């Protein structure tokens, strides 16, 4: 188990290295000049040149890459061209914001998705099954940004039930410690703020949860169906076991591996793919952070942002792989 985990971690190194190289070269291909962006319409040729020099953009790209890599290894993400701020400080609040949102969305998606899938499989071909699966199909076909807009329109603009943007009350802002506001407010004992934070989470997380929920429900159903046709489930029934336990104990644990795969995949996707939801709900997350940086050609930020996202993506895969071993004892010995 341990060696399996180490092996997986070691395998990450070339992937991460490759990723950094790809990211680095991709963004150098992006036309547009950060200096021009910074200086805007007031730019003169001279000003651009001296800014280039100040930013080190006039060196050959591999020199830039090597020094970037060197910094990375020491945990230094560099500084934003635009704001001059060290990225390592800037990035965490954004990442935490996205992580909190994704986490809540994933909890919603997993809870409803798995249960809907299980019940659908258990009561295959029933009305519940049919309805749940049609809803799930619509769910996977739903453009998130559209759903987000509709949600915002209905629940916020028309009904005024929930806030439309942001993650906390601007006037009564959460004092960040970990930048996970749910945790921070609890740590500070601010239950009023906690409640506000929850309210802010509802709309975006539901929008974000739709697709994973639908995918998880579908995967759970098909995986459960497959498992429930298997010989060992027949064995369990032949023992006289109750259906409930067969479904929730025997089948679920077996069916969980493919479900885990999609959960992992979807979680990873949420991290970077939340851009659209973040745009609509003014969520100060990592997706928008990088997206904006692309707009401003803020190379170090794009670089580090994408890398961090990819890193988490890979880490989630790793965790999933390790979790496989928890759910499937056969894997440890592979």
């Amino acid at each position, binding site marked *: 188990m341990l*060696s399996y985990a180490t092996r997986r971690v*070691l395998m990450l190194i070339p992937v991460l290295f490759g990723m950094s190289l790809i990211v680095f070269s991709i963004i150098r291909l992006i036309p547009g000049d950060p200096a021009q962006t910074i200086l805007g319409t007031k730019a003169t040729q001279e000003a651009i040149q001296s800014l280039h020099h100040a930013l080190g953009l006039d060196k050959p790209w591999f020199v830039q890459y090597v020094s970037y890599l060197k910094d990375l290894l020491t945990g230094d993400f560099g500084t934003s061209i635009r704001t001059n701020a060290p990225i390592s400080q800037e990035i965490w609040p954004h990442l935490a914001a996205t992580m909190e949102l994704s986490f809540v969305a994933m909890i919603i998606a997993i809870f409803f998705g798995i249960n809907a899938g299980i019940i659908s499989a258990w009561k295959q071909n029933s009305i519940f099954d049919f309805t749940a699966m049609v809803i799930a199909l619509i769910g996977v076909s739903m453009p998130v940004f559209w759903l987000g807009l509709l949600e915002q329109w209905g629940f916020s603009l028309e009904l005024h039930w929930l806030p439309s943007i942001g993650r906390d009350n601007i006037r009564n802002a959460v004092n960040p410690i970990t930048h996970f506001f749910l945790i921070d407010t609890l740590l500070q004992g601010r239950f009023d703020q906690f409640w506000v934070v929850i309210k802010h989470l509802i709309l975006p997380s539901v929008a974000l949860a739709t697709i994973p929920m639908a995918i998880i429900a579908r995967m759970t159903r098909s995986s459960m169906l497959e498992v429930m046709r298997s010989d060992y489930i027949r064995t369990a029934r032949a023992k006289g076991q109750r259906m409930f336990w067969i479904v929730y104990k025997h089948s679920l644990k077996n069916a969980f591996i493919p479900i885990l795969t999609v959960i992992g995949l979807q979680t990873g996707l949420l991290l970077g793919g939340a851009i659209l939801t973040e745009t609509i709900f003014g969520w100060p997350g990592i997706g928008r952070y990088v997206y904006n940086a692309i707009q401003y050609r803020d190379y170090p930020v794009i670089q580090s942002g994408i890398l961090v996202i990819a890193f988490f993506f890979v880490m989630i895969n790793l965790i999933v792989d390790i979790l496989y071993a928890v759910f499937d004892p056969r894997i440890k010995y592979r």
Partner: protein
Amino acid sequence: MGESLLKVNDLKKHFPIEGGVLGRTLGHVKAVDGVSFAIEKGETLGLVGESGCGKSTTGRMLLRLIEPSAGRIVFAGKDMTKLAKSELRELRKDIQMIFQDPFASLNPRHTVGRIIEEPMIVHKLGGKKERKKRVRELLEVVGLSSYHAKRYPHQFSGGQRQRIGIARALAVKPKLIVADEPVSALDVSVQSQVLNLLQDLQEQFGLTFLFIAHDLSVVRHFSDRVGVMYLGRIVELGASKELYEDPKHPYTQALLSAVPVPDPNYQNEKIILSGDVPSPSNPPSGCTFHNRCPMAMDHCKTKVPELKELEDGRLTACHLY
């Protein structure tokens, strides 16, 4: 009897087990660990043994579908292990294979006609017309009708598919046919049809067979000589009548006694072996059978028995003899 058509000498296949941090080789599965035998022209050599003892691997190495780790295979005077790829493809015309699984061994997207024709296309035998004609002939030979050529495999039953597989093997007029469990996936009543068919074909075309099976009765029925394999080695080899009537190696004895005979009046004394077949990745030292052998002696644990000739061509690898 004439020259040996095929001679196999100390053939080995060790599959590496990969794992660890960087995909290092952790060990080897000794799937085949020094097998030697010869097949005369026109005879059938049976190969029996329990699952995983290396029968299929041996069979496939003869066509070099699996590259041998060591050893020599001499077919019709040529050393197969030394052939270049193109020569090898040429030679494969002379050795054909019949597979165990009648469902998996036919491409589901090709018509039966195309499946049978394909070997001829590959080896550029005859023109289009001739090939089509031959396909029809072959279908008749294996007991199907020529109009079956347009059908797809899934429209046939298992027995019929196995006939198609046989027709494909016959298409290039091979000298040797390696039949890897050709009937073990078939129903009893169909199994006998296919066995009869193979027997007929052998008589008609003078075919030479390496007949692999785990069903001892089938092997006895079909083979002239039989080799018994255990953990990648041949433990006993001899003419089938003698071997079945008077098995020498304790494993052969146990194996034969364990087969349930379809006759309620027949009661034999069963030798029940203890334990399971050990894993070929970690075979026991010395005689690989020693840990299950009812007659094991001390030196069986250390010394590997040679395959020795006992009488009239019977070979046994056991320290008792």
